[in-house]
Each structure stands twice: as C-alpha cells, then as structure tokens.
C-alpha cells in the first residue's frame, strides 16, 4: 500500500501544469496513397490526441511547449514528426513486427513496443483467418513462439487448450488468461467468439507482462481486440462466406491378416480378431436365423474389406456466412456483424449450428468517449451420446470393434427388422451396430452467451485520462441426453443384455462481472525524461451453477422427459461463487526515448481464502533499452535497423478455487435409502497451513531488425520458479485419504523463444515472406516434499501422469518389463516376460521443442500461404491401442504370426543373479491369450513418441484489383482456397491417432484433469483434414 500512496502523491504534483494550445490538421495516408482511418495522433509527452477520420484526416489541439506528434496504428510503423506549421501530412508504412509498433497490454493499455520490458507477439485478423477456422484457437496454431495450442478433439464444437511457455503449476490452472476488449474473460468466451470479429490478438507470454492482473496473470494472457468502426469512416458492408469439407485423414494402423474369431478358431459373431488367417472363402457372419425368418444367414468373403472403418465416416462440411457493416460519423463509430455457422460432422447426424451477433459502438461527446462492445451467441450441438449400449461405450468403440472382414457401411438400415443392420440380426454379438448407436443415443445442448463491455474514457486533463470498464460475461444453457432402450431376441443375440433407456436434463448458468477503473497520466518531466503512470482498481465476481437430473428406465418409449423415469431420479446441483478486489499501479520512466524503467504493483484480496488472511502483493520491475537510439554509432545504420534489449522480473501468486480450504462431507452414492440419509467425509484431506502458490518469473529479451526491418528477430529466455506449489499429494490410502491438498516444493521452468521474420524476396510485385518460430521449454520438478518423490496427477494401477522429482513435468509413468542387461527376463515355466514392480518414468508429455514456419508468397492480388509445425521430444500414452488390444487388431498381435514364440532377446534366472539366454522357452497362448492377457498388461507397450509434423494450413487466395472491383460497384472481392491439417507425419510406432487428442465427453468437460497432458484420446472420431473455399466481398 505504501508504494501506492507514494505514486499517488507524485502523480498529483506533476499534474499541476496548464498549457496554452494551437491546432494542427492534416491527412495520414498509406503507401498506396489511401487515407488511413483510426490512426492515433498523439502529442508527445501528453495524453492529448485524436484519431484520424475515415478519410485519414485529423485535427488536434497541441498544447504550448509541445513540439512532436506521434502517429501510430496497429500493424504500421509508428512515426514521430516534429511540429512545423499548422498542416502536417504523414505517410505511414506497414511494419513487420518491430519496436515502433504499438501493443495493447494489460487492461487495454496501449504502449509503444519500445517501452515494454517483456516480449509480446501479435496475431492480426488476416493471419488468424488465413484458413477460415471456425474457432480462433485453431487459427493461432504455429503462429506464436512459446504458445502451444492443443486441438484436443475434432468434434463439431471442438475444444482447445492454450499453453504459454509450458506448465508452471502442477495441479493449478496453466491456461492463458483471456482478455477481450479490456476485460478479463474466459477461454470458453474466447471459443465462443466469431473469429471474424477479431481485429487483433496480442499475446503477453509471461507473468511479467500480465502482472497487473494479479493472480490471473501467472499464465500469460491473450489480449483480444474486436473490430471497431472509425470516426468519419464511410459505411462498409461486407460478406465473408466459406464452405469447408472435412474428411478422415487417417485411421488407426490395424492388422488385416486375421479376422473374426477366438483362440485361433473362426467365430461368426465375434467382435474380436483372433480367428484364422484370412483365406477369401465365403463364411457365415452373424446369427443363424431360424426357419421362416425373413433373412437368410449372411455370408461374406473371409477377407479384409478395404477402408471398411474409414467409410463409416462421412465427409463433413461447414458453411459460414458473416455479414458485417462498419463506419462512423464525426462523433460516433459502429461495427455490426451477424454470423452464422452450420456444421455437419464426419459422424452421421452430428451437427452444430451457431449464430453470433456483435455490436461495437462508440460515441464521442466532448472529452468523453462512451463505447460498448456487445456480443451474443447461441449455438446448438447435436451429437451421438457417450454412453452407448449395455456397456456404456462411446461410438468409436463400436466402430473399432468391427473386424476387417465386415462390410460395415452396409449396415445403415438399422430400423428395418428385415435387415442385417437390425439389432437382433446384426453380426456382432457383443458390440452393437454403430449406425444403430447414432439413432438411439443423442446428446443435444443449447448454449447462449452474452458478453458486454461498457467503457467510459474521459480526458480529464491534457495529461490525464480516466478509463473505466464494466463487463458482463454471462453464459447459460440447457442440455438433454437420451438413450433409447433395446431388447434382444434371446436366440439370435444370447450375449447381449437389455439396453436400458435414460434421459438426462442439464442446465448451467455462469455469470461473471468485472469492473475496473484506471487513471493514466503521461508527462514529459524534462526534454529527456518522460513518465507514464497508471493507477487503477478492479473487482471481479463469478457465480456458477449447474444441475443435472437423470431419470432411468423410461416408461414411454421415445418420450424423453425426466417425468418418464422409474425409480428415483438422480439429481445433482453444483454451485460456486468467488469474488476478488485488486488495486494496482504502474509507472514507466523513460529517458531519451531509448531507456525505460518499468515498475508495477498490485494488491489483491480474494474470497477464496480465510477472510483474515486473504491478501497478497504482486510486484514486477523491468527495463527496456533501445541500443540503436541510445548509441550514436548505431543510429541510422543501414544494416542494423533496430536493437532493443529487455529484462524483467515479476512475482505473482495464483489463486484458489472456491471452498478449497475446507474438508467437507457430501451425500454418499445411493443415499438416501428411504429415510436413511448418509454423508461421506471427503477423501481429500486439507493441509491446515495451506497457502497460495508463488510464481517468480525472469525474462530476458532481445529484438533485432536488419536491413530496414526486412529481417526481424525476437528472442527471449525466461526462467520461472514456482514454489509452494498447491497440489494434491497422494498419501498412502491407509491414511484414510486418497489425496492431501498441500503445498509442495518447487517447479522450475525455463525456455527459449525465437521468432524470425524475413522478407526473402521483394521485387517486381513479387514478395516472399517467411516467419519462423522456435520454442524450447523445460519444466522440471526440483523438489516435492520430504519422503515424497512423486505425486500423481491422474493414474491407474499400471500407468499415469505424474510429477516426479528431478524429472520433466508432466511425466508419464507405466508398468514395464523387468530387464537384465537390456534383455527381457522371462518366467521359465510360462515363457512370459516378468514385470517390474510399480510404475516407471517413461518421459515428458509436453514437447521439448516446437518449431513452426509460415511462408507467404504474394504477387499482385495472389497469395499463397502455408503454416506448419513440428513438435517433438515428448511421449504419450496411446490409450486407444491399449483398450483395443483385446480385440486382436493390433499390429503387434500378428508379429509372431499368432504362434507360440520365444520372446526375442530374453533370459531367465536359474539361481539368484544367474541368467541364462532363452532360446527355447516359448510364450504360451501366442494365438490369443498371451496378447490380450499378458502383453496388454504391460502399459509401457503403449507409450509412444508423440512427435508430429503437421501442415496446419495451406491456402491460396486472390484479391481482384481495386479498379476492376470498383467497376462492379464493389470495394473488395477476395476468393480463396483453404486447407487445414492437409498432412500429418507421425513416427512409425504411433499407430493410433493424433497425439494432441484427449478424451472428451460431448458436453465439453474432460475426463481427465487439464494438467494430465499425455493421455491420448480414443473416444472421439479419427483425425481429419479439411479443405474449402472462402469469399470476402465488401460494398
């Protein structure tokens, strides 16, 4: 608090000055001679300024004693021009990322890049929308160093995880903070944005940049600015349309030599593939139908059917139409958009529809600008259910449990009792027809979001601006999941159990309110010394409620209302609330416009800690030095255009979830039984001395640009140290708890980021730009606790994701073989390999490094652009192959031709310590049991290299020449051909799916904690690629 008072006092003294004024007018144009609207025109050393109007003209009152105007616009090179006369016309040219740019930082505070003491990176609307993604996150992949975007599934409403600079917390949140139009928002709100409405995104990569946000800052921030109109801009009406098609990219790599059967023998109703070798003979599949049945026994060749599983999936498509208009008069601006997205998934009947509306408007009244940015979304997801059949399995399970010799796509007619596709007639005695599954299991969700930010900006004095934001971010929705019942003919389908019907109703409401107010001042203390100060306060409040009602065994078929259930419905209600208050301030002290000292502080009070001990202080300091301006020898150098060095350090504490500090009871499963109720003490014990997690970050950065910014290089090195990590340690279950929430040792992160931008060629209208970035990151567990060397994030008896002392986090562990001198030790009586006790380190699950490259060729209106990335140095647990091993479709299961065999490279122990080479003791059950019972037990068999090289985007576009377009009474016409995920290269041993995937249930929740990275998903459909066209017209 003391620091804050000092700042405040200082701040009020420097303000006591009065200025006389004169007026300067002019026009700002770009390289092509067109007027540029929306350029910030600022009187240097003050907050006096204006924006250029629609035609690029401006008029500004310059206080006496000021002699420089600063013209800046995002994406263009900032210019400082000495005032000479009353008319000043300026040409701004487009910039590659260099230090003269302006960047939007915390709380929407716009700073010149040269004065920031940390690394930020910007993604423009064009860069984001290159491949017409349906979600903003998909457009970010590969474009920012230090950012890992994991596209976790490919459903019709996909989930993404955005990590900046790896992981800093073992159990806490590691996802980047999202700020939309100056207000703290949420990743789900970000996903709900119409990507076409995004003007730019600034990525504040580390806690240093985001420290003003207090506890929310630990994971860096994504600062999103939506599109706005500009003053006196003439009305533009535009249309953005795209059609994209989505296809399965690749299926799991399965064996196709052996078909339906068990223990080496053919079986006509098996889901498993332990039958004899394919021989092409005609064989019965499915039940034997009794005399008089409409069907005769189905016979198919005992041979693989090409792409039989792949053909189950259809070509999905997405049609997006956005209409927008923008413009403004002398005092007001507006941007309006209406978006419509309709998607058909690759799974039959899966669909998604989304409507978005955005109204961004502002009104200038004298020294006050009122603005509001309002968006509304509603969407509908209609997908196949997750708990299908008598075993509650996901759809993909049923597809994968279909042998290679089954013509799967011929079983579409599932409602027809005279068809082989009908439940009683389907060939598979254990897993139902996936087409039947689609028709009898649906999850339908509706959601809405209202996100409104109301802003008042008041130029109190020439040197002082007051800015306040009030944000409402509400989302709510309902969902219904249902499953129809299915009875079976006991003779035709003796192994199936009755599938019971159920319906689940779901509702949620998430309300967030944020309010912040900031005073910003800008003063030139002397000719050489400048001072910028921001002082502010913020509050946030969040309430969440969700409820589900599940009714089982419905009385009326096809009537999906909870009143239709028998027995007691299962009801769950979850509510939570949290609030916080923060006051903060920062100052930037500049000398000679080449060296800047930055300091900030924030004091937070939070509701999630005990009332008497709920406050924390977050400091940060930094320095930026522009060598090319400071050292005269470097000035106006024709090779080295800019050189800037930054260093900064910050400390932040991450916040708690609500109610975390109390041990509590909850109603136990099954209760109440009549009037007997029961409560279960939580299996999570709480350390009574629990405190907040502390994160200290140091960052060193360098920005260089060469040959008049033709080549630019940004690098940074960062070190993070998280102490008092809040996590769940796993005590012995004999303690009576399965988790203890406590603080543990230390997690150290460090990494290097490198961004290289280059204009390789620029001649005769032909331009080739390359943008490469490289990230390497390490997050190492330095210490955990006395007597405790690891904690489990998510684990089973035989595999899991852990934090292990001295190892990279997250670390995957699995049970594995017992080895002697690199040879498998076998049990001489069975031939089986012996397992090591417990689980063992298998490797890190986040990439050791990511390299990405974007290449853009432009020639006149033509543009060809490609983005690819390569992630490597990490492993993942291929859960899909593990759970499918018992079906005998794995490639491994045919490696010994389904014979008993001697484990290669094996030994056995004849007496303690004496090992004999095994040349003759065979594994028993090579036809089946060895693989499904013994091999399958060893989960290290399923830990695979997670490296992937992907071409994320490849697009070709053409913008028609202006004069041609104008003849057709248009302003702009651009057409493009886009592809996403055109090609993926995976290591040979990765046989199943995309390592980025994670199991998701359709409602968007995940089945494993967010930090349990490295558990490959198998519940969603196979990876896809897409291609399509887009069209942008402006009138």
């Amino acid at each position, binding site marked *: 608090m003391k620091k804050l008072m000092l700042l405040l006092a200082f701040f009020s003294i420097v303000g006591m000055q009065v200025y006389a004024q004169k007026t300067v007018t002019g026009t700002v144009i770009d390289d092509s001679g067109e007027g540029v609207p929306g350029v910030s025109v600022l009187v240097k050393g003050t907050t006096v300024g204006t924006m250029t109007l629609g035609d690029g003209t401006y008029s500004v009152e310059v206080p006496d004693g000021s002699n420089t105007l600063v013209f800046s616009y995002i994406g263009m090179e900032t210019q400082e021009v000495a005032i000479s006369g009353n008319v000043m016309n300026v040409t701004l040219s487009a910039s590659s990322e260099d230090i003269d740019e302006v960047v939007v930082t915390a709380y929407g505070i716009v700073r010149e890049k040269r004065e920031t003491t940390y690394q930020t990176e910007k993604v423009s609307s064009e860069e984001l929308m290159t491949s017409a993604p349906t979600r903003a996150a998909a457009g970010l992949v590969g474009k920012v160093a230090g950012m890992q975007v994991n596209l976790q599934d490919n459903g019709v409403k996909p989930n993404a995880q955005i990590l900046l600079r790896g992981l800093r917390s073992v159990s806490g949140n590691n996802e980047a903070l999202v700020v939309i139009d100056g207000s703290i928002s949420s990743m789900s709100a970000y996903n709900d944005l119409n990507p076409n409405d995004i003007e730019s995104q600034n990525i504040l990569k580390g806690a240093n940049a985001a420290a003003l946000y207090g506890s929310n800052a630990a994971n860096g921030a994504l600062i999103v600015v939506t599109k706005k109109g500009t003053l006196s801009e003439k009305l533009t009406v535009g249309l953005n349309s795209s059609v994209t098609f989505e296809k399965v990219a690749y299926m799991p790599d399965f064996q196709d030599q052996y078909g339906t059967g068990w223990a080496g023998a053919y079986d006509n109703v098996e889901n498993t593939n332990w039958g004899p070798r394919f021989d092409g003979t005609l064989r019965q599949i499915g039940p034997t139908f009794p005399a008089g049945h409409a069907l005769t026994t189905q016979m198919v060749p005992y041979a693989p059917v090409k792409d039989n599983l792949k053909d189950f999936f259809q070509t999905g498509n997405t049609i997006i139409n956005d209409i927008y208009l923008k413009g403004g008069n002398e005092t007001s601006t507006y941007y309006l958009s209406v978006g419509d997205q309709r998607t058909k998934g690759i799974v039959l009947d899966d669909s998604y529809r989304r409507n978005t509306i955005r109204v961004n408007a502002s009104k200038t009244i004298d020294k006050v600008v009122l603005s509001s940015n309002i968006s509304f979304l509603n969407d509908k997801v209609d997908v196949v259910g997750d708990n299908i059949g008598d075993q509650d399995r996901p759809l993909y399970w049923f597809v994968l449990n279909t042998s290679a010799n089954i013509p799967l796509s011929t079983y579409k007619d599932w409602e027809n009792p005279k068809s082989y596709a009908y439940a009683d007639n389907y060939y598979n005695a254990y897993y139902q027809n996936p087409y039947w599954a689609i028709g009898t299991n649906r999850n339908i969700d509706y959601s809405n979001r209202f996100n409104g930010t109301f802003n008042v900006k008041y130029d109190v004095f020439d040197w002082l601006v007051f800015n306040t934001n009030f944000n409402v971010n509400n989302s709510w929705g309902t969902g219904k999941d249902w499953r129809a019942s299915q009875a079976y003919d006991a003779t035709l389908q*003796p192994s199936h159990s009755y599938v019971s019907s159920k319906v689940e109703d779901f509702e949620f409401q998430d309300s967030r309110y944020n309010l912040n107010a900031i005073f910003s001042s800008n003063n030139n203390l002397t000719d050489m010394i400048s001072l910028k100060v921001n002082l502010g306060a913020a509050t946030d409040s969040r309430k969440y409620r969700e409820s589900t009602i599940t009714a089982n065994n419905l009385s009326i078929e096809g009537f999906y209302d909870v009143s239709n259930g028998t027995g007691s419905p299962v009801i769950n209600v979850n509510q939570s609330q949290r609030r916080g208050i923060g006051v903060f301030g920062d100052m930037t002290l500049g000398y000679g416009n080449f060296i800047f000292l930055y300091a900030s502080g924030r004091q937070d009070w939070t509701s999630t800690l005990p009332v008497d001990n709920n406050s924390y202080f977050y400091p940060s300091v930094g320095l930026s030095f522009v060598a090319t301006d400071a050292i005269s020898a470097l000035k106006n150098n024709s090779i080295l255009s800019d050189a800037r060095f930054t260093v900064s350090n910050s400390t932040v504490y991450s916040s708690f979830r609500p109610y975390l500090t109390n041990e509590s009871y909850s109603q136990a499963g099954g209760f109440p039984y*009549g*009037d007997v109720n029961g409560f279960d003490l939580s*299996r999570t014990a709480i350390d009574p001395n629990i405190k907040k997690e502390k994160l200290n970050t140091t960052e060193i950065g360098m920005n260089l640009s060469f040959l008049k910014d033709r080549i630019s290089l940004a690098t940074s090195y960062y070190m993070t140290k998280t102490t008092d990590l809040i996590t769940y340690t796993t005590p012995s279950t004999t*303690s009576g*708890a399965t988790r203890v929430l406590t603080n543990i040792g230390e997690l150290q992160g460090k990494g290097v980021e490198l961004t290289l931008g280059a204009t390789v060629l620029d001649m005769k209208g032909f331009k080739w730009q390359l943008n490469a970035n490289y990230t390497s990151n390490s997050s190492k567990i330095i210490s955990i606790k006395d007597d405790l060397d690891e904690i489990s994030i998510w684990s089973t008896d035989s595999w899991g994701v852990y934090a292990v002392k001295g190892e990279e986090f997250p670390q995957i562990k699995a049970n594995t073989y017992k080895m002697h001198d690199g040879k498998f030790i076998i049990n001489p009586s069975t031939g089986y390999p012996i397992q090591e006790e417990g689980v063992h380190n298998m490797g890190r699950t986040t990439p050791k490094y990511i390299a990405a490259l974007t290449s853009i060729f432009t020639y006149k209106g033509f543009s060809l652009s490609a983005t690819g990335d390569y992630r490597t140095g990490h492993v993942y647990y291929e859960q899909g192959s593990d759970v499918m091993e018992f079906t005998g479709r794995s490639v491994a299961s045919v490696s010994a031709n389904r014979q008993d065999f001697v484990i290669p490279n094996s030994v056995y122990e004849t007496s303690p310590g004496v090992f004999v080479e095994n040349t003759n003791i065979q594994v028993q059950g090579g036809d089946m049991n060895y693989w499904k019972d013994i091999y399958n*037990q060893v989960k290290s068999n399923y830990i695979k290299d997670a490296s992937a090289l992907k071409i994320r985007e490849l697009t070709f576009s053409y913008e028609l020449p202006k004069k041609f377009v104008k003849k057709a009474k248009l302003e702009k016409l651009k057409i493009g051909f886009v592809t996403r995920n055109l090609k993926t290269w995976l290591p040979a041993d990765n046989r199943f799916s995309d390592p980025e995937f994670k199991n998701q249930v359709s409602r968007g929740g995940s089945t494993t904690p967010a930090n349990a990275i490295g558990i490959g998903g198998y519940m969603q459909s196979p990876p896809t690629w897409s291609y399509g066209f887009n069209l942008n017209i402006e009138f």
Partner: protein
Amino acid sequence: MKNIIKYTTVLLLTGVLLFTSCKEYLDVNTDPNNPTEVSPDLILPVAQKYTANIMNASDAGGRRLAALSNLMMYNWSQSDGFSWYNDEFNYLVTTNFYSALFDRVYPYALKQYTELENLEAEYDYYKAIGMIMKAYHFQILVDLYGDIPYSEALQRATIPTPKYDDAQTIYEDLIVKLTAAIDLINNVPELHKTPDTDDAIFGGDMMKWKQFANSIKLRILTRQMSMSGRSAYLTAEFAAIATEGSGFIDADVAINPGYLKEKNKQNPFWNLYGKDEGGTLTLTSKATCATQWVLDYLTNSNDPRIDFIYEKPADGHLGVPQGLKDYDTPIPDVYMPDKVSNLGPGVLKGPSQGAVIYTLAECKFNQAEAALPGNGYLAANPKSLYEEGIEASFAYLGATGASTYYGQSMNNVGYDASANKLEAIITQKWIAMNSITAEQSWFDYSRTGFPSNLPVPMFAPTTDRPVRLFYPSSEISANGGNVPTQPDAFTAKIFWAN
C-alpha cells in the same frame, strides 16, 4: 455532458460501494453444496454400505472380495463369450490384482468408522460400533496381506505414510479393541444417543453388537488354531468371551441400509451378479457360472443346496472348468450363458437382499472347530454345532432336508462318518460359504488345505492357489518407504497358516 457525469458517477459509486463493504463482499466462501459437519447417524450407514461394497462389489460393478474368493475356491467359472476372469484364472497376482481390497477399504469404510471412533462420550454406542467394524475389516486385511498399516493408519494429513505393523500384533490388538468396544457398550453414560434405522446391521440393538463383537473374536481366534504354541492364549481369550457372557450371534449378520430396485440402490451382489435395476440380467450374471467340479461334488453327496447356490438350466446342471480356452470343441456353443449353471436363487434373492458379512453357519462351524476334542476351547458338542452349521446354511439358502443330508453315512457329510472331523467342518464350511462369504474358505484352505483335491485352473502357472495378495502399486508409489518387500504370493503364508 451532464449525462456522462451521471453515468460515470454511477459506475464509480458501484465500485465504491463494493470497496466499502469489502469484508462482507469477500465473505462468500461457504460451500453451498457440501456441509463441513454432520451428525454420526449420517456417517454410520455410509460406512456400513461401504463394508457391503468391499465384500461384494462396488456400486459401479467393480469386482471385490466375492469374485476373488469364489474364483480362488473354484466355486465360479466363466461361460462362453466372455473374457471376464482371465487374471484370476492365470493366478496373476500383481500389484494391480484386486488392489481395491486394500485401496478401497481404508479411505472408504475404515475412514467413516474412524470418524465414529473419534466422537465424544455421548456417542459411545456409535464409537463402539466403529471399533467393532474396524476390527472386522482389519482382520480381513491381515488375512489378505499379512503386515499392514494399523497403529498409524487413518490419520489423514497428519500421517500420510503410516508404518506397517506386524500381522500377529494387530491380531492381538483387535481382540483388545473388541473387548474395549464391549466395555464401552456396557458402560455407556446416562446421556447417550442410540442408533436406530441408521444402523444398517442391527438397527441399534446393542446386545447384538456385543454378540457380533464376540463372533469376530471367535473368527480371529479360530484362524489361529492351527498355530503351534498358541493354545494358552486361545484358552484365555475364549474364557474371557465366556465370562463376558453375551454369547455369539444367533442369526446371519447382514448389512441392509434399505436396498431397493433402483439405480445405485440395489444390493451390490445382486446388482453385479443378478439383475440391473431395470430387471435385466447383467452381463456378469451371464458370464459367471459354476465349475463342473463343484457341481459334481454337490451331486455326488446328494446335496440339495446345488439348486440354490446355482441356477439349474433347462438341460440340467453344467459347469465349466476354470481357464478353459476353447469353448467350442468338441461341441460348439455348449457353454453359452443360458446352458450353464449361473448363480442360483439361494444366493441371488433379490435387489433388496441384505449383504451378508458373517453367516450363522460360519459361526457354528467356528464354534465346532473350537470345541473339537483336540482344541477344547469351548465346552460344547462339536457334532451338534457342526449339524447346526449345516442347518443354518440350508436355512439361508432356502433349501430343505438338512438332516437327511447330514444323516448320510458319507465322509465329510455325516459327522460320525467323517474320518477327519476338522476336514469335515472346513469342507462343510466351504459349501456353506459358497457365493456368500467364500473368503473365509480361502483362508481356511491356506490354513488347513481343505477341501482336499481342490483343482486349479487349466493353464494355471502353479500347482496350487495363491495364499495372499500383493501390496498394491498405490502403496509402492505413495508409501514406498514403509511397504515391506512383496512376499511370494504362493508360498509366503499369513502367520496363522504357518
């Protein structure tokens, strides 16, 4: 301009209001969904339900002690079309094999009972129940694992890595704790709370709790009867039971919080091995069936219980050898679920049947063993106790003709006709415990080797069954400093079996 000032003022005022009531504004950290304190009558039934789960099956259908012990004792096998019990047939005792029997006892049932144990004197009845039930569980834990965490266990965050205690020391302390529990019941303060319907075992009948405590003592003591040098201790403890005077249980002990035919509310054994709440046979009920060996055994001794323990298919009883690989040779589909003897009406009574954790039959057989001439710990007639045991077994299963059955002059059936009385008792106990509390037979088998000639599965890696389980992998990773070296699962017998 005025409007703007108003607008700004409103925004600012909102902020100011929030700041002025800062303390109140932030005081919203009370969980609306989960209480932090509850009364013992809400803790007890949950604990008992968990006891039933660990003995039978989890609500979600996870296999627990019932599956393990019936498979170990060759009572159950697997019908055609299922791949259910491979690990069991391979005797694949690893750190992941039935780890729930360790992992899901302490933080579930035992955690809840410990909550009761820590109550003040007003709740002495609850406290005593907590102590008795803990003794019940700890004995079974020792029987499965030997040395286990005991004295330092169940203290949550205070001792996250409890040390292991010696099995026999625990056994002795259990007797002390049971005595203390009975004392608590006998000396309850004037102001006390008595459990009612929240006691899902005895409905608050504290006399029955004392009898149950004595019967657990009986189980603990019987287990040690094959040990040498133990007779003085056993004699003294049996004398103490006699002096206390409440006697043993006179009915089957079952847990029933009010099971009914609804999702998550059915008896867990029924729910897994019988029908789901919709009345449909579960997959496990189809997968699980008799072994031919046990069917032959019952048939050859003219045992009417065969039709109660196992369901009789239309074509007559049929069992499957454990570990059978090729179900279809020579006759295809002969072992399909509807053709084999699945579990029968005597053990699958209905969705609201109680979960039996100690049968009257077992209590009688234990007494019979204690009364055997060579033991003499109980002054009673072993023959009549033996026959009462068989009567109790018939009664539970709903079978009739017990006296005709044990009246046969047949070894291990008629008492007088039996060459080895202990073998007769243990063999009859094995039949009586089938599909109910078969773990007792597994422990008896390790201790006595009876029933004789019990087969092992086809392709089993060893010639005899395991005698214990491995400490689970959770202990190796979370309590590695304390967990003992894994003893051999086939040779390292629990102390009472040596």
